């Protein structure tokens, strides 16, 4: 049922190739499975990142992403601005995530301010961040304060999302994405610098 190409990493190609999203939406609405699969490859990374940004478990994240795609299927004939499909998907995914969080009775995360990093952000040596050290970088990332972790997790989606779509995914003003991105990356760089394991030279 699922084309073999699906599990390949060819979705990365979407990063470089301009996709005609409205044409794909129109074709999918006519039942074209390959057009639908192209949309799935293009946007699944973003939807998964949004679900993880809200700290959903494996099962809940899968549920939120699937619900988002099924809602798109239900609305395929009525997407009025198909060129803004990424924004529609981002908004829908946010609603699905928040609904799952409410259903589980989990308390909403405190809305702390994203402060500047206490230390000046040092330059990070690229060589420190390769190979097995990625595992340590990932652990340090997971320990970021929640608002920074949430924003960066969406920005880390493959292919990279537009700021407008990140804003819809997190219900943040689009103008705040750039400045907060800078602060949060600065925070992470400071934490990476404080991790002696990451400072080892190869």
């Amino acid at each position, binding site marked *: *049922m*699922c*084309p073999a190409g*699906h*599990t390949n990493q060819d979705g990365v190609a979407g990063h470089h190739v301009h996709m005609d999203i409205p044409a794909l939406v129109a074709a*999918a609405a006519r*039942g074209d*499975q390959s057009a*639908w*699969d192209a949309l*799935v*490859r293009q946007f*699944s*990374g973003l939807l*998964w*990142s949004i679900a*993880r940004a809200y700290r959903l478990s*494996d099962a809940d*994240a*899968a*549920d939120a*992403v*699937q*619900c988002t*795609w*099924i*809602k*798109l*299927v*239900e609305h*395929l004939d009525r997407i009025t601005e198909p060129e803004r499909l990424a924004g529609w998907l981002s908004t829908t995914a946010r609603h699905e995530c928040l*609904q799952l969080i*409410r*259903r*589980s*009775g989990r308390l909403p995360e405190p809305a702390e301010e994203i402060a500047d990093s206490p230390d000046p952000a040092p*330059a*990070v*040596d*690229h060589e420190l*961040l390769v190979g097995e050290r*990625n*595992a340590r*970088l*990932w652990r340090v*990332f997971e320990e970021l304060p929640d608002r920074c972790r949430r924003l*960066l*997790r969406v*920005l*880390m*989606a*493959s292919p*990279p999302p537009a700021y407008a779509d990140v804003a819809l995914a997190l219900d943040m003003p689009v103008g705040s994405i750039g400045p907060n*991105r*800078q602060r949060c*990356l600065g925070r*992470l*760089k400071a934490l990476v610098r404080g991790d002696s394991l990451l400072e080892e030279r190869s």
Partner: protein
Amino acid sequence: MNDDDFLDVLRATADEFDPVPAGVLRDASAALALRSLDAELAELVESEALVRGDGPLTLAFESERVTVNLEISDGVVRGLVTGAEGEAVVETPHSRRAAPITDGWFTVTDVPSGLVRIRVTASDGTPVVTRWARG
């Protein structure tokens, strides 16, 4: 390393440690086949979780021809239908279970949690399906 390069490193890290699971991609691909172009759509008109977290969830759907009221609790879907007869089919993205409608009522057990919708046949033969709802 500038911010763009650092974010690229982070993106590669996310692709390595938290990739989109293959099953999520398969389900997304299969979602297109869940369209029901032939059926009249019953819209959700009421939804209420009686107790947050657990306890039954009640849902009410309406189309031109039928109404469907559902109570979902612990995998049991109990429904009251007007304007339809025969059997009710309880669908999830991965399963279909049919049950006879008796005096308007039907019950289906062992329904997996997640999305659910109900398919019935109106008295005049028109197929009717509810919107997806989270059970």
